[in-house]
């Protein structure tokens, strides 16, 4: 039989381990009790649909941050992907090569390939010249936005077939939003990769200490390039979902998404120093931000106040993670 002290210790470590879940539960409970229309199935599904665009990228960003990298150009990649999908679909149709209904598949593939190429480029510059991804992707953010604006001439491109809206706005069995299903699929894939594969362990090792990882036989360059490609491909996928929701592609899409994406990852407990973080934590971070945003809208909170709340949340999350990390290091030292 456990003593009272052991039980207290168990509760303490459990509450630390599941802090995000506990906070989310408390906020959700408060919203259930106070916000009109919060605790309804359509609203819960709506929250999942709303968080898909940033959520899909967040899982890729989790891989990148755990691997010691970051990508600030994801917002612009959304815009480029959406513009490319709509433009290529329209061009194929106009040239008589294939109708919009089928041409859009080619366009989506092209958008994903362009995302892959951007990721490869970022990875090449990162590993070949040892320039921090913070700087590379900040520069690429402008390049990609400019490219999207050039391709679209600054106008929204609307050449997309009717069926395409299913990808961003459809429902399965007339209930479950299709975007939420994309989110869950991407979550499952990234979760498996990061938790059950050799590559996942390599990402943690590279992010924790690249030199040690290299000495233990891990191809650090390959790992870094793959995680940067993953973020960009997922950003391109998010652009496809957004263009399907809005039924157009515009260079104005995705503005500021990098902030939401990184927020979700940090709130989920991933450390910006690399090597520490969980895909499940990011999932909780995404849901947490979605619930907060939804709750603020239901209460009619203004945009200025929303900025403050979001900013404070990130600050507290970082503070909390730092304190936890410090206490962990302290505990290791005392052992």
């Amino acid at each position: 039989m456990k003593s009272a002290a052991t039980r207290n210790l168990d509760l303490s470590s459990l509450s630390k381990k599941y802090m995000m879940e506990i906070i989310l539960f408390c906020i959700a409970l408060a919203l259930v009790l106070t916000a009109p229309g919060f605790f309804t199935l359509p609203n819960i599904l709506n929250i999942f649909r709303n968080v898909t665009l940033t959520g899909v990228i967040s899982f890729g960003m989790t891989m990148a941050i755990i691997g010691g990298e970051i990508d600030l150009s994801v917002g612009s990649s959304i815009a480029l992907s959406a513009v490319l999908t709509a433009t290529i679909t329209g061009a194929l149709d106009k040239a008589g090569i294939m109708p919009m209904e089928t041409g859009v598949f080619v366009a989506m593939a092209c958008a994903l390939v362009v995302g892959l190429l951007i990721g490869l480029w970022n990875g090449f510059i990162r590993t070949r010249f040892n320039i921090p991804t913070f700087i590379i992707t900040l520069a690429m953010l402008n390049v990609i936005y400019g490219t999207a604006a050039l391709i679209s001439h600054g106008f929204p491109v609307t050449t997309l077939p009717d069926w395409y809206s299913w990808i961003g706005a459809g429902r399965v069995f007339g209930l479950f939003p299709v975007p939420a299903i994309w989110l869950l699929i991407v979550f499952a894939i990234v979760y498996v990769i990061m938790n059950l594969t050799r590559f996942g362990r390599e990402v943690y090792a590279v992010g924790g200490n690249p030199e040690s990882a290299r000495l233990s036989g891990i191809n650090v360059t390959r790992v870094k390039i793959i995680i940067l490609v993953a973020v960009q491909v997922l950003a391109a996928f998010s652009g496809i979902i957004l263009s399907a929701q809005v039924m157009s592609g515009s260079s104005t899409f995705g503005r500021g998404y990098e902030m939401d994406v990184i927020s979700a990852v940090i709130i989920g407990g991933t450390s910006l120093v690399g090597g520490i973080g969980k895909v499940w934590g990011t999932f909780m971070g995404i849901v947490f931000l979605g619930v907060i945003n939804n709750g603020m809208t239901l209460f009619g909170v203004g945009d200025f106040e929303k900025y403050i709340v979001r900013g404070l949340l990130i600050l507290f999350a970082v503070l909390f993670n730092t304190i936890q990390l410090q206490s962990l290091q302290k505990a290791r030292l005392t052992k």
Partner: protein
Amino acid sequence: MKKILVTLMVVALMVAVGGTAFAQAKPKVAGVVFQEDQFMKLMQMGYKDAAIKAGFDFYPGNTNGDAAKEAEFINTYLTQGYKGLAISPISEGASMKVIADAAGKGLLIGISNFTLTNAPYITGAFTSDNYDLGKTCGKAAVEFIKTKMGGKAKIAILQFKSLLPEQSGARVNGFLDQVKTLPGVEVIADQDAWLQDKAITVGGDIITAKGATLNLIFSANEGGTIGATMAVKNAGKAGKIFVFGFDGSEQMVQLLKDKADILQAAIAQDPYGIGVKTMEALAKAIKGEDYSATKAKTVIVPGILLERKNVKGLDAFLADLKAKSK
């Protein structure tokens, strides 16, 4: 040989510099907007077409809503000897001091998308009357509420007050002052969402929370209107929630013709016309012609109401828009 090469390079450089100087013999004018949307793009096209027609070299700029960038642009034009500037300022508080200073130093300035208050140094301000546009859209909504909704409506507003409070407020007030004349009308939500993706999210949140009672959304700009319409469609509320909005574009016309019957009317401005008129007045001032008709005055450029029921009007608007966009 080396001397010959150096001489050739110097000659080439002189020719290039001379050519550039010759090319720059035309007066230089700039056209600056503050966003990258279709409205601003068309306005800048208006600036450009009128500037080229007047025989100027045209240089575009975009401040992206950044007051510091706006001041930087204006100071650059001033020091680089530009003759004139057509600009859509960010706001009265943030922009007019810098504009007044530049005008005081000799830069001729025309203003777009803005109502002047005490600015004698401006060659002319050309704008839509935001309150009036909101009012026109409101009148269309009143008719719709009376005939299709039994005179009752629960309304959600999507606007851009944290981006441009004066414009957003004028549009929303113009709309509300009309619809609130009906006793059965009530505003049940008011949020900021001016980009399409954000409007889908915020619109979706409002619909799921208040979907049982909500039956009309008014959005004060293009992105908000498209986002709100798509949010209604995505939520499967077509035929139950109707949208009234602002601005005109190809996609807006598509939505106004869409069988889903969600977007009912939108008030479109004439950004291209605003741009052309601003640059024309500026050109007169640069050329030393009489521009007293517009000097220090605000000239209202009327908008056009795009309605679902007026298909011919929609087609005509779209054809005109495509011609200007080329």
